[in-house]
């Protein structure tokens, strides 16, 4: 089971999907694309947060995706 965590003001939203279940993948991909359109940055990582990289396309085989709002200099 894969998961995506999307940060937000009310805490992160967790979305899980099974790569073998088309409908679940579709929902996760839709969320990913929606947040990317809002300039969120996405990190594909292992469950423990290691071995990550920035991704621009949804990967249904990712163990975990963490999406953060666009960053700006403070």
């Amino acid at each position, binding site marked *: 089971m894969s998961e995506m*965590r999307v*940060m*937000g*003001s*009310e*805490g*992160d939203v967790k979305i899980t999907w099974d790569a073998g279940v088309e409908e679940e993948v579709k929902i996760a991909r839709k969320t990913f694309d929606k947040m990317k359109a809002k300039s969120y*940055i996405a*990190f594909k*990582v292992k*469950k*423990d*947060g290691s071995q*990550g*990289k*920035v991704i621009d396309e949804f990967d249904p085989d990712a163990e975990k995706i*963490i999406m*953060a*709002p*666009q*960053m*700006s*200099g*403070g």
Partner: protein
Amino acid sequence: MATPRRGRGYSKPDRVTTVGDMHVGSTANCPAGWTVSSAGWKFYGGYGRINDRAAWYRSEVVDSSDTLATYTFTTGTIEELDNLWAREHVFDFRPQPLTDAFEIFQAEVEESKKARQAAKDLLYSVLDPMQIHSLEQTGFFVVFSQSGKPYQIQGGHVLNVAELDGQGRVVARLCALPEGVPDEDVMTAQVLMLRYAEEMFRGIANIRTEVQ
């Protein structure tokens, strides 16, 4: 006739709340549903029920510690009290808008706690046990970028990232963050950026070099 206070948005409450057995001069805490937040006691009142009698009540701050309140009551049937209200504006402090505000405030506090806990869980999921221990004991932890450069991240979100040299000395402070998320989410985003997109992070961040 008492003069009704105006201009604060007070209005006649539209619901009846059972407040239990309260007494004039009581210093008990406010009944459930009418409590105020940690902002302190305020003037407010309610449309309640005391010993099976409908009642208006109001509370006032009675000490400077904001922990005690006194209650005054006028009991009667709802109809009687409605009439009293209509004729004399007996109570000036109408609870509904204020109570709503506090309920909203309290709900927001609860939501904020949940949001922070969720953010903390997410942060801890990307840290190793040593980093978690360091954060809990000292308020900061060190993360290494893919280039091998160490950065110290502190709790908070303003200039909370420090670039370290080989001896652990701070050589620069960096500030880049996602806005509108709890501090722990800010830290999570910073960890991931430093680990996997260091150059992008440095390109975004305001960087202040530390004078040695």
